[in-house]
């Protein structure tokens, strides 16, 4: 669309700018303030420069949390994106079954995150949970997510797949429905098989929504906090402690304001950098291949 040049449009965005500034810029400035000072109490603050940042960048705990975070985000992306595409392709296109399938798929997205945690906390338990009982007693594989770190990882990953694959499904489903029937008719005239329809029609048409899906899933998995907190509490040991959990532990648990603030800034800048890259890629792809 051709946009008119008009700087009065600033007046229309002003409320948003003021509101977001109140809830984003002021808190961020506080964080910056903490990150360069050592604060003992009101009025007792000492300038420490970059000390907290150096400490943070060298901290073993944080390296561990960062690596676990990367592994976690990578794993769930590798599972959720292909699974989401497959489910979206298999879902009925119209009629009451389509509506029912949509409502059911979307259900996990509307459940408060701590309740998602509670559901899996219960479901995966060996004594009172159906899932844990099935693996332990029917399959005969010992499974205990509170004691074994591999089991804790499996639980957290399955939980995230359960919780967020629906988002990928809905995005892909929307992309698929936007393909005109004429495309499929042309393909069948050409005698194209199921696979080439997917490869040359459906996949290119889903490129835009898939990019949004990868972007959202990457970002959101990178800030996951509530669900693992409820299920494993970050344990056993530190096995499922991801970045947000480590940060909350430092900020509210130990009240280490300085290091926590320095950590916050590094964390935020990393996400900012990643989203800047993603955003530019998205704009470029959106311009080039949306047709």
């Amino acid at each position: 669309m051709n946009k008119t040049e008009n700087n009065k449009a600033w007046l229309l965005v002003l409320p948003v700018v003021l509101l977001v500034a109140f809830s984003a810029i002021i808190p961020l400035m506080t964080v910056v303030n903490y990150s360069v000072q050592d604060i003992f109490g009101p009025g007792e603050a000492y300038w420490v420069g970059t000390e907290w940042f150096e400490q943070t960048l060298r901290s073993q705990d944080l390296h561990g949390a960062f690596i676990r975070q990367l592994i976690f985000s990578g794993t769930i992306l590798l599972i959720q994106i292909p699974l989401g595409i497959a489910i979206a392709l298999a879902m009925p296109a119209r009629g009451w079954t389509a509506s029912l399938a949509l409502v059911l798929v979307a259900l996990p997205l509307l459940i408060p995150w701590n309740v998602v945690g509670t559901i899996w906390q219960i479901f995966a338990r060996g004594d009172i949970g159906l899932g844990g009982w099935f693996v332990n007693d029917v399959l005969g594989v010992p499974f205990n997510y509170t004691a074994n770190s591999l089991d804790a990882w499996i639980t957290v990953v399955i939980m995230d797949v359960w919780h967020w694959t629906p988002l990928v499904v809905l995005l892909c489903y929307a992309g698929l429905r936007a393909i005109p029937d004429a495309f499929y008719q042309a393909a069948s005239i050409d005698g194209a098989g199921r696979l080439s329809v997917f490869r040359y029609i459906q996949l290119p048409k889903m490129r835009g929504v898939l990019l949004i899906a990868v972007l959202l899933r990457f970002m959101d998995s990178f800030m996951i906090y509530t669900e693992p907190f409820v299920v494993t509490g970050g344990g056993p040991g530190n096995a499922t402690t991801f970045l947000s959990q480590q940060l909350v532990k430092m900020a509210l648990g130990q009240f280490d304001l300085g290091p926590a603030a320095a950590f916050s800034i590094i964390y935020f800048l990393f996400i900012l950098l990643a989203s800047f890259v993603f955003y530019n890629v998205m704009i470029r792809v959106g311009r080039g291949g949306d047709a």
Partner: protein
Amino acid sequence: MKKRHVGLIIYFGFLLLPIYWLLTMSLKTNVEITGSLTLWPERLTFANYVTILTDPAWYSGYINSFIYVAMNTAISLSVALPAAYAFSRYKFIGDKHLFFWLLTNRMAPPAVFVLPFFQLYQTVGLFDTHIAVALAHCLFNVPLAVWILEGFMSGVPKEIDETAYIDGYSFPRFFAQIFMPLIKAGIGVTAFFCFMFSWVELLLARTLTSVEAKPIAATMTRTVSAAGMDWGTLAAAGVLTIVPGALVIYFVRNYMAKGFALGRV
């Protein structure tokens, strides 16, 4: 039966089993839950639900959650509508940077904001009020609302605006009487998303409240007591938090897919 149907049924089984388990558990007594594993309640009881619906400490959690979610949806929509219109129709200095800056807030980890929010709202005297949580949730809901609405608005041809202005409509009148009805679906979908993200968030809501505005999600930690876990009540509280979500999904089911694609399909 085709292969893809089998796959779909397995997926839906995986999707619904944990929810089914929560539901049956909420209808069992604690003795039955911890005693033996039963696939459906042997002695059906609604005692867990009665506890929640009669105890003010429990049901006030639901009321608090609803109040701040409603406030947040109203605030987000009313500031995002004009802004989204500006982004979809006009070029202005710094528009691209501003849009990106808004998006970065959607991508900021809430954990980063926990401590400063806590202190900010305590300083301005809003701690433990519904409006504090509503404003805090604007951090991620306003950018999202602008993003989705902009997508829907860009689908409306600009000629409509121009014709209306030529016909002598002022901007507010045009916006309220002609433009908003055209993007009804978009507004509904945006409201749905604001509801959703405010409803499911816990970390900020829990940090900014203590007694007066405590959300249901935080109330649920009450079930851990010296006498052990009260699993039945916990499960019942969980089931009750799913109900509102299931209801709103039903209303937006036909637009939902498009909304998740952020209005850009």
